[in-house]
């Protein structure tokens, strides 16, 4: 378990705290403060993964967000998570990591056969397969092999939460520039949030090696952090990646800082201003086999050496084209990695650089380029072409390459910011943006003092282009871009989609610039003219769970409970969801048996139903009657105070949207009932009509549904049951006939509202009492009513009862096209005086056609044959069959002891008695069209 590649001293790790972890089943050791990547390198692990398409061995390339090879499946104790960048996860005790690819093993992969035959699988080969011979030949195999890991199955042990935050200034990146700016803003009293993806703030300050530089950097860092901590208006988020930048300065942050506690946070930040101090990403160079394990970014090798005390290899060759990389190579050499040569494509280097190399005895080859890396599983040497055209090889265990820096402009681009190609820096820098965003430091192209950064143009090596990798993650080669250009995909957007360069989950952090450079060279353009593709959220992959937050299980959507919920539980209710409501579907264990018993009780004795979710809206004011007359199809003016009337609401298209009764409490005061499902929607609908269309009408409305619980008592014994409530008053039919209303106080002092209406066809009362008293009132009614055979009934029984009566269920028996004529309410429309919503549409010819689907009753010829809602009524013979309607309600009626239903059937009214065929659950069922009502058609029961 020795960490052979760990220096004996140095680094910002805690050597007192060794941590044990495993990789592909091997037990390894690292230290607290390591990333998974640095710990793997310390143990000499070279091959960490297999490439996406050609299954080539891949090692760690980078040290930060740009890592595109070490995307591993990691379990930190809360389940396996795929696609985790080893460079971004802090090592913890017991962590287990695995390579997602490689069969049988990542070190020996049979898939390598695709590498040997890769001429057969160039870019777009599958697009061509769509044309010829047939994509499906390969589909199965490709789908099995493709992918970057497996989606975990089962319950996720990790918890996720959402947060929202606001600030005056959001600083993205806690490097030198970011911290400096944060401090300035904090001092001037601004509310500041600093978000840093690393678990340690400091950025490049953490990479100062062990000498005066480190002391100065650490001193500055500590002073700044200490001062920042004193400000209550500063929040520093670590391990928090800003993943998306949206309109109005809304940014999303994926906060992984509490992962060890098993929780991730997804936060939306609304910032007054945004300062992007996101730094820059070092770019790879293009030469043969530049994807071999051991070929790494020079800055990354320095990162591992200085910050973690890890030598990525014993020796290396530096291949560079810019000044910044020299600093990395010299630091690397001083940290114990023997730099055996520096190959610089520029013709000249500065005297200082020459002296530094000389002092360390490093040979320098100027005007030279790398041709190809040697080795099969890992680097064993490097072939170089020098300025005089001579090729020679150098033995080495790794290659430290640097193709210059590219600002991390992803978020800026997401914000709508435009980029500009900077010739001198050979990269894209921020140009302008309409949002309140500022880019500072390396992200703005300020990598170094102006004269200290010179860079040679990026070219690909004079070597076989089908061995030079542009996009490591999607396995895109220089030859793929050549092919794209040959096939005329010369626009950058076309090239990107054809080759898939830059389309991988790393969004081309190390490939876009090289791909553009190659495209520019092949098409003879300036890189600036080639342009860039668009960066889209997310900057880094975000766990799906974090996006969902806690909106799962019981919090997926809200649940509404009836006021007497617990009482229903105690009665053995089986609950079902109706909209957001949990309502008793039936009481008991056996559904069918319970429904029949409940229906029978209501028909012969009495039943108690909880109708509390019923929408209730109070409308008052001098124009209340006029308003209602406009929103209901029914006539309102003739309704007397204390009386109840059935009402139908339409939308502008004449389609039925709701029904229910309304009560005239006083001349200028009404109480509207809406269906339970539409309580909120109708309240909003009425407000909209009043506020937007008829503000001149003087009225006020208040939804009061939640205030009043509703106990519906229905059945021949309903009057007897209700009479047991002292103070409810005389219930005689001459005093309180069907469709009338009363309000007052019970003897207990409880206010009540009572309307005699019926949705069951029986004598029925709807008693409203304050919701807080619902449970005791239900209990009292049931106790007193036992004597009369009262028993609670649920929604299922109610549905049977109203289907027997042929009563309309809006939303069930109607769809978005059903008008009042279709359901037999044409007379109400014809008798109505004055205008109402939907009238104009009803006058259209199409709304009055006899061929429309009309609501009729149906019964199966075989009384035992069940029907399903949604079954189609079909006409015509085989081959010419067509639907002429469908079943909208269906149930077994214990009252008439057969299956009955209702259906919307073309020209149904005129077809009474006709036999129809219904395609029901795969079989043809014969049925007859009947009047909808099969129980007490004269209504004597409910008027009793």
């Amino acid at each position, binding site marked *: 378990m020795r960490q052979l590649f760990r220096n004996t001293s140095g680094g910002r790790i805690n050597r007192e705290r060794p941590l044990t972890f495993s990789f592909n089943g091997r037990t390894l050791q690292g230290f607290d403060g390591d990333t998974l990547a640095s710990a793997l390198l310390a143990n000499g692990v070279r091959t960490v993964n297999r490439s996406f398409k050609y299954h080539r061995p891949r090692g760690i390339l980078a040290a930060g967000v740009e890592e595109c090879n070490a995307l591993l499946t990691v379990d930190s104790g809360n389940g396996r998570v795929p696609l985790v960048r080893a460079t971004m996860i802090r090592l913890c005790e017991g962590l287990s990591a695995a390579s997602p690819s490689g069969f049988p093993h990542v070190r020996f992969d049979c898939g390598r056969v695709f590498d040997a035959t890769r001429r057969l699988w160039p870019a777009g080969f599958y697009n061509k397969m769509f044309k010829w011979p047939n994509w499906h030949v390969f589909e199965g195999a490709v789908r099995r092999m493709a992918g970057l890991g497996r989606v975990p199955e089962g319950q996720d042990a990790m918890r996720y*939460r959402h*947060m929202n935050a606001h600030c005056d200034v959001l600083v993205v990146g806690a490097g030198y520039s970011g911290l400096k700016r944060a401090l300035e803003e904090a001092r001037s009293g601004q509310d500041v949030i600093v978000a840093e993806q690393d678990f340690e703030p400091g950025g490049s300050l953490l990479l100062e090696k062990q000498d005066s530089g480190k002391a100065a950097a650490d001193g500055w860092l500590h002073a700044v952090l200490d001062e920042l901590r004193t400000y209550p208006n500063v929040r520093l988020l670590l391990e928090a990646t800003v993943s998306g930048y949206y309109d109005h300065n809304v940014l999303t942050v994926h906060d992984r800082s*509490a992962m060890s506690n098993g929780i991730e946070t997804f936060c939306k930040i609304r910032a007054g201003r945004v300062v992007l101090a996101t730094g820059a990403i070092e770019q790879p160079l293009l030469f043969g086999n530049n994807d071999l394990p051991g070929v790494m970014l020079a800055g990354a090798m320095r990162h591992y050496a200085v910050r973690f005390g890890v030598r990525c290899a014993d020796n290396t060759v530096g291949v560079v084209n810019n000044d910044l990389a020299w600093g990395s190579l010299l630091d690397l050499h001083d940290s114990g990695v023997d730099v055996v040569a520096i190959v610089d494509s520029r013709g000249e280097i500065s005297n200082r650089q020459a002296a530094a190399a000389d002092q360390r005895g490093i040979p320098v080859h100027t005007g030279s380029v790398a041709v190809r890396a040697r080795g099969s599983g890992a680097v064993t040497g490097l072939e170089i072409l020098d300025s005089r055209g001579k090729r020679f090889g150098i033995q080495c265990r790794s290659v430290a390459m640097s193709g210059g820096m590219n600002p991390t402009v992803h978020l800026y681009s997401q914000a709508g910011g435009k980029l500009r190609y900077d010739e001198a820096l050979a990269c894209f820098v921020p140009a302008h943006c309409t949002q309140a965003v500022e880019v500072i430091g390396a992200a703005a192209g300020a990598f170094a003092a102006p004269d200290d950064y010179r860079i040679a143009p990026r070219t690909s090596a004079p070597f076989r282009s089908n061995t030079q990798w542009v996009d490591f993650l999607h396995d895109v080669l220089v030859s793929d871009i050549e092919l794209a250009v040959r096939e005329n995909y010369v626009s950058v957007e076309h090239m990107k989609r054809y080759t898939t360069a830059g389309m991988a989950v790393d969004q081309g952090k190390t490939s876009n610039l090289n791909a553009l450079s190659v495209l520019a060279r092949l098409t003879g353009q300036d890189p600036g003219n080639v342009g860039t593709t668009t960066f889209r959220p997310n900057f880094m992959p975000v766990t799906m769970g974090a996006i969902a937050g806690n909106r799962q299980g019981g919090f997926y959507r809200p649940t*509404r409970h*009836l006021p007497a919920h617990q009482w229903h539980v105690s009665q053995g209710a089986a609950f079902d969801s109706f909209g957001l409501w949990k309502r008793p579907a039936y009481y008991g264990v056996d559904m069918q048996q319970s429904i029949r018993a409940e229906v029978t009780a209501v028909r012969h004795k009495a039943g108690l139903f909880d109708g509390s979710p019923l929408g209730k809206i109070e409308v008052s*004011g001098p124009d209340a009657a006029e308003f209602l007359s406009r929103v209901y199809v029914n006539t309102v003016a003739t309704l007397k105070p204390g009386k109840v009337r059935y009402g139908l609401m339409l939308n502008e298209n004449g389609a039925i949207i709701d029904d229910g009764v309304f009560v005239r409490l006083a001349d200028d005061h009404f109480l509207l009932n809406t269906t339970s499902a539409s309580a909120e929607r109708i309240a909003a609908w009425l407000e909209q009509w009043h506020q937007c269309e008829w503000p001149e009408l003087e009225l006020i409305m208040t939804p*009061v549904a939640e205030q009043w619980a509703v106990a519906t008592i229905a059945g021949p014994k309903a009057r007897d049951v209700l009479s047991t409530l002292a103070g409810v008053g005389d219930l005689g039919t001459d005093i309180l006939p069907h469709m009338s209303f009363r309000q007052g106080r019970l003897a207990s002092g409880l206010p009540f509202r009572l309307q005699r209406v019926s949705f069951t066809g029986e004598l029925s009362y709807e008693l409203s009492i304050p919701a807080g*008293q619902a449970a005791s009132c239900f209990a009292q009614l049931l106790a007193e009513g036992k004597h009369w055979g009262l028993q609670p009934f649920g929604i299922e029984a109610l549905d049977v009862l109203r289907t027997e009566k042929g009563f309309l269920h809006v939303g069930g028996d109607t769809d978005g096209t059903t008008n009042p004529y279709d359901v037999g309410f044409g007379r109400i429309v014809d008798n109505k005086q004055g205008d109402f919503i939907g009238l104009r549409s009803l006058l259209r010819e199409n709304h009055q056609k006899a061929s429309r689907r009309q609501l009729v009753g149906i019964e199966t010829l075989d009384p035992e044959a069940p029907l399903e809602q949604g079954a189609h009524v079909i006409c015509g013979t085989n081959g010419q069959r067509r639907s002429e309607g469908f079943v909208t309600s269906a149930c077994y009626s214990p009252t008439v002891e057969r299956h009955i239903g209702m259906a919307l059937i073309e020209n149904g009214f005129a077809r009474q008695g006709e036999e129809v065929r219904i395609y029901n659950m795969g079989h043809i069922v014969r049925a007859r069209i009947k009047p909808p009502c099969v129980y007490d058609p004269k209504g004597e029961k409910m008027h009793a």
Partner: protein
Amino acid sequence: MPDVTMKSVSYQSMVSLRVARSQAAEAIGRLGLAKPLSRTAEELASAWMGPAHWLLISNPERADDLIRRVADSLDGLLYQAVSSSDAFAVTALDGLLSRHVLAAGCALDFRPDNFPPGSCHRTRFAQVPVAICAQHENSFELICERSCRDYLASWLADTIAQTLRAGCNAHWR
């Protein structure tokens, strides 16, 4: 004291008061009703629920008495005052982390300067309609519809647990 606690609160009476838009100013003058986005703790406590819409909250008084008092004051105006004592459920959230818990449920700005005591906002909180009132520096009341009470209570309990688990402290970190 724990960093955040929650408990159910009951008031003797709540009355929903809506006034015709054109007469709202007059009503505010006569009853001393709360300004937009705020809640008063005067003798007649009122929480602003929307334009020309308030929730009157009273502890000693019964809803009927409150409605009568409103009727006396607003004589001649077009208004509607209905008892809502049973329609709404009130939950109190107290403690240093209460602003964290609130920020998990909606996008309002809960920074103390922007949501000082006396604020009252209606919003969609944890997917349900809620009015959030700041009572004191770190104590809040959430007014939700009665039917959402159980859901909201379990949502808050879960969010409190997750907030503590995420290691939040009073400075939002």
